[in-house]
């Protein structure tokens, strides 16, 4: 353990990330250390361990001092471990978490699996000795099997059969891991590789969906992912459309384009709070304030858009699809009453799959227009076709 030194987690210029794995604990010989849960990264030069909570806490171990490697398979209550036997500490090494240790080996405990993969890569890197000279082509099998116990001297050429398949899968994974960590090194890199990363993220998500049905158990995260996928490419902002009326009317138009379909799908109505959430998710980081949203919605009627703002007496505000035009609704309601003979609001709500409040409202509206008549009894409110008008 005294061979470890503190570092800032950044890589040397010619150093490359090979493999990484979360949920790894470091043991000093047989003893536990405070480094319980972290990300273990294997590079061409070093082993890096980063604390999962405090990401500034990083320790490193040069691969060059690893004398040999062993595996300890997982037991009933134990995680699989890798044992690394180390050279005695060299004088003048940078400061580390422990100044003196009784053990000359460390153990890495893989609590979230991945031990086999890691062991294979680690063994290979120790063997390749890429830290010695970067110009050396990878894996030109330097003869000295540097102590790795059961090394088979595998050449990186394509092998047929199962081992070959495993190798190529492994190589591909390694490549992907490398690509991801390179792209996310800084913002500039990510912007350059954005397109590839978008595709990669989609591939990963699709594959995971194939296997377990969805990317996550969490219903909110699933819903979030759905809402985000409805992104708008050019959100109307004050910067693009200026202040005042022009901004609001453009905003209203954009809202109408975005929302008309979802509103019709949810039965022709959506509360403004739901609208607020949907719109902002589609806009991503370009937030819209509740005030601006309300103002834009108020303009919808004036602009003759297919959705309108509507406020109920209870103070509930919704956006409503224009297909629910008053006259059409009234004649539709009258037709249903005619067909059924008589109707209460509960019955209408069941027939149309509407809320009871809205069903009642429809009937009252139809009554106001003279389409139906009420029969008000102690059993409740019932509506009949208006024969006073039709049969007089």
């Amino acid at each position, binding site marked *: 353990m005294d061979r470890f030194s503190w570092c800032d987690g950044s890589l040397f210029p010619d150093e490359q990330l090979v493999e990484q794995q979360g949920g790894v604990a470091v043991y000093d010989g047989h003893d536990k250390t405070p480094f319980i849960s972290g990300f273990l990264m294997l590079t061409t030069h070093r082993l890096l361990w980063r604390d999962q909570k405090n990401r500034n806490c990083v320790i490193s171990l040069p691969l060059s001092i690893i004398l040999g490697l062993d595996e300890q398979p997982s037991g009933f209550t134990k995680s699989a471990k890798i044992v690394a036997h180390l050279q005695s500490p060299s004088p003048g090494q940078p400061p580390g978490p422990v100044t003196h240790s009784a053990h000359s080996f460390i153990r890495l405990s893989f609590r979230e699996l991945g031990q086999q993969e890691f062991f294979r890569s680690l063994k290979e890197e120790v063997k390749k000795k890429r830290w010695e000279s970067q110009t050396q082509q990878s894996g030109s099998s330097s003869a000295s099997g540097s102590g790795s116990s059961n090394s088979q001297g595998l050449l990186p050429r394509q092998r047929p059969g199962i081992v070959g398949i495993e190798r190529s899968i492994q190589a591909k994974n390694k490549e992907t891991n490398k690509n991801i960590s390179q792209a*996310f090194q800084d913002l500039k890199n990510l912007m350059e590789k*954005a397109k590839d990363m978008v595709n990669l993220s989609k591939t990963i998500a699709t594959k995971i969906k194939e296997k377990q049905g969805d990317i996550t158990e969490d219903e*909110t*995260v699933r819903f979030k992912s759905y809402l985000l996928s409805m992104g708008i490419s050019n959100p109307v902002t004050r910067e693009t459309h200026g202040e005042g009326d022009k901004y609001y009317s453009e905003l209203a138009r954009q809202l109408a384009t975005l929302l008309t379909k979802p509103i019709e799908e949810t039965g022709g109505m959506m509360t*403004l709070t739901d609208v607020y*959430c949907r719109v902002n998710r589609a806009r991503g980081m370009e937030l819209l304030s509740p005030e601006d949203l*309300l103002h834009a919605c108020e303009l919808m009627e004036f602009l003759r858009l297919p959705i309108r703002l509507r406020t109920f007496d209870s103070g509930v505000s919704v956006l409503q699809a224009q297909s629910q035009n008053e006259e059409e609704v009234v004649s539709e309601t009258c037709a249903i009453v005619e067909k059924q003979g008589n109707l209460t609001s*509960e019955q209408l709500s*069941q027939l149309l799959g509407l809320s009871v409040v809205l069903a009642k409202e429809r009937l009252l509206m139809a009554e106001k227009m003279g389409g139906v008549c009420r029969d008000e009894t102690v059993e409740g409110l019932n509506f009949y076709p208006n024969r006073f008008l039709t049969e007089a």
Partner: protein
Amino acid sequence: MSRRPAGIAAIKNKSLAQAKYKDKGSAIADSQFAQMGKQMEMFKGNLEDFATKHRDDIRKDPEFRLQFQEMCASIGVDPLASSKGFWAEMLGVGDFYYELGIQIVEVCMATSKRNGGLISIEELRRKVEASRGRNSQAISIDDLLRAIKKLKILGNGFSVHKVGGSFLVQSVPGELTLDHTVVLQQAQEKGNVTKSDLVNLLSWEEERARRALDFMVKEGLAWVDHQSGNEHSFWFPSLIPDFSNSLN
């Protein structure tokens, strides 16, 4: 020389080999899947970090912003990651409470199928915190209430009710809820329904059942029967079976 037909041992060997191939195959598939999961976690962590650190830069570039959003969408990462700074705390300014508002409504929308748009503030807090990702600060109940207050201008569709010492958030208003219709369906057979019927048969929360029934009594759609044993039952006049016909 003609080939000897395969004996039993050969067949056994063959099927053994096949079983082994199959095992190996599923082992490879499993490890491949574990790798995918790992890459997904890598993506997630990286995206969360970038959303926190480079927010303004990402916003500046429209093309990249969309790409970033696409990545967030496929991995399920929240791109909104403002932290509650000093000014947000003191004056409620800045994006923090607006973002929180969006996240709150999102949780409510996502769970409304299950809970009918009623959620306790404690559950809401837990879910919001979980969906904000690992870089999130702790969110307090007070934060939630402040964020919800900012939504007030959008109408009464989203409201907070005090229940005992805690709060209940209602995200589906009476105008849009289908709970009442479901109650009616439930009552169709017997003409009446009790609160525990709804709780047991529909696995509703008790509060949800109580609210739905209270509303229907208030609207004159349901009558209460105080004499039906240990629990009140609710009758719906429009559903009461027509006994006059069956007598004839």
